[in-house]
């Protein structure tokens, strides 16, 4: 059995990359400030010293060029991990991501293989305003051809990163800044957990029940899982048993796990840090709606998400638009007291 120790999510991601680089000479990293700086959010910390600048490559601020380079190198059989510093910066390079990385496999009838990991920082909570605080996983998940991984803790992050590097398809690996365990940003301590030293994988498309409960299901990803766990503990103190389901990947999406949990509890709250409309929360709600023949709801589905405004800078404004622990508690209490929807089974 492998030894485990507590690791931050940043260290777990970096460890997974390092182990895969040792295992496979074709794996390399490129991006802004990934080498000397070790990644602005620490995802490549310590790797330059071990692997040198031929495999840990600082790039110019040229996202179209270096993400395109990752695509071209992958088509030649290499396995690039390319970092987009903040997901918000997708704006300058989305053509490479959406029209090429996501589509070339399909347009080639499967003859082109692109084993690229596009790794990027997401999320707000530290007042960095509208161009540095978005989640956008729903945007990437909306586009056919990209797998989308959104871990909530160090253990999952390591296994999912290893899986991502070994996957022969484009994987967008999105880490929330507020669970990386950085020494310069407040974070949710539940995200720093026991991680085996040895390499391991976690298959995509397998959600995890991170807290069992019978009264309602809270579906979440990334930092929102940590908030949901704190909320669930508070709810337990008042006698409400919330089940928390961490999707872990949203492409592929573990639909069966969502349905199984909601069948059990009869109530669904989706807690999401992405924008409300046309996104993850709507997708989960639609999944349940499409299966009402086998899911008996005791209350209407409830969604918590950013209310379709850009992320504001000012602290009271940001706290208002990004769902917080108290909002999850309140929404849950509302759900527990809600009327049964018309036609619902008892």
């Amino acid at each position, binding site marked *: 059995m492998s030894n485990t120790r507590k690791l931050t999510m940043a260290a777990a991601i970096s460890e997974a990359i390092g182990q895969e680089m040792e295992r496979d000479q074709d794996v390399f990293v490129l991006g*802004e*400030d990934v080498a*000397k*700086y070790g990644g*602005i959010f620490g995802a490549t910390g310590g790797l330059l010293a071990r692997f040198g600048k031929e495999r840990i490559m*600082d*790039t*110019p*601020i*040229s*996202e*179209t*060029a270096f993400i395109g380079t990752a695509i071209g190198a992958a088509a030649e059989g290499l396995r690039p991990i390319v970092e987009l510093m903040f997901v*918000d*910066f997708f*704006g*300058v390079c989305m053509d490479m991501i959406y029209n090429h990385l996501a589509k070339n496999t399909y347009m080639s009838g499967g003859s082109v293989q692109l084993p690229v990991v596009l790794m990027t920082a997401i999320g707000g*909570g*530290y*007042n*960095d*305003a*509208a*161009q*540095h605080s978005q989640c956008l996983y729903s945007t990437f998940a909306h586009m056919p051809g990209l797998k989308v991984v959104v871990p909530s803790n160090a253990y999952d992050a390591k296994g999912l990163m290893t899986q991502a590097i070994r996957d022969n398809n484009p994987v967008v690996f999105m880490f929330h800044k507020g669970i990386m365990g950085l*020494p*310069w*940003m*407040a*974070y949710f301590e539940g995200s720093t957990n026991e991680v085996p030293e040895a390499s391991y994988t976690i298959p995509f498309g397998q959600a995890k029940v991170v807290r069992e409960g019978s009264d309602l299901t809270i579906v979440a990803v990334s930092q929102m899982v940590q908030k949901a766990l704190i909320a669930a503990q508070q709810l337990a103190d008042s006698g409400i048993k919330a089940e928390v389901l961490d999707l872990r990947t949203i492409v592929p999406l573990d639909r069966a796990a969502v349905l199984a949990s909601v069948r059990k509890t009869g109530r669904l709250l989706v807690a999401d840090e992405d924008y409300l409309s046309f996104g993850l929360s709507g997708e989960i709600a639609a999944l349940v709606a499409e299966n009402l023949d086998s899911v008996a709801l005791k209350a209407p589905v409830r969604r918590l998400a950013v*209310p*379709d*405004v*850009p992320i*504001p*800078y*000012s*602290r*009271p*404004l*940001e*706290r*208002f*638009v990004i769902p917080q622990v108290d909002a999850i508690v309140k929404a849950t209490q509302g759900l527990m007291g809600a009327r049964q929807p018309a036609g619902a089974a008892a």
Partner: protein
Amino acid sequence: MTPTAEHKLWMYEKMIEIRQYEETMAGVYLEGKLPPAIQKGLAFDIGGGPVPGEMHLAAGQEPVAVGVCAHLRAEDSVVGTHRPHHFAIAKGVPLKPMTAEMFGKDTGLGRGKGGHMHLFDPAHKFSCSGIIGASLPPACGAALAAKKRGKDWVAVAFFGEGASNQGSFHESLNLASLWRLPVVFVCEDNKYAISVEKVDSTSVAWNADRASAYGMPGVLVGQNDALEVYEAAGAAIARARRGEGPTLLEVRTDRYLGHFQGDPETYRPAGEVEALRKNDPIPRLGAHLRKLGLLDDAADAALRAGVNARVAEAYEYGRTSPYPKPEDALLHVFH
């Protein structure tokens, strides 16, 4: 183009104001971000205190802002960068609402929605962006508007040397030259794109050399010196006003502080900042003014007292202004 005595004194005062503004912010920014006020185990909390989030300060880069903006009129447009305070101050953005914005207050330029990287002051024709290379295309647009309206207004895009490797730089230079737009592209070369040195990111030694590829003059100002920037910018802005098209200006400047406040700066050689500070452009211009008899101790002290009072007043205004109501977050998505 040699500056008048009035312009020289203006540049000197504005540089002092910018420096005072940035140094004050460096102190205010640390409030509430250090132990023991923060989460246990952290050394620093970027989201703490009255001015949270990232903070990019421009101490050392004052000559670029004042040497260019000294030539600008109220009708001219400036588009800045993620490190925008020196440009905003030099363009005449009022300190009080600018500072209130950084405190996230309802009296701020953006009513607390934007923060320090996203300052919008249409009344003073100033804007900026947190996205690298994002200043050049909108500056082309401001220049196009001036041209369409038959005005001799110009637009200035400031950007860092790191931005010169973005597509937006190359696309904008081509478009501006093709359409002979009255725009001046000003590259602030402070050597570092966060941790990545220019020599590791850029295929040519000088971005000014890239101008020839787009059929426009490229001018390198090799010294972090307000008078030299003034001279080069004057020619470029006059050319734009005459309708002769764009110029690319590159200024070698120095960043005294981190990329952001809290940056460990392990990528800098030891002693680099101390060496750079020995070449501080503010005392150099002061000495020049004294030599010309335009400044003496009493005038310098009076000028500095005035600047300090203005800056202190702006910070007090920012600190004591009210926050917006939380639900105001829902306003302003659309007009």
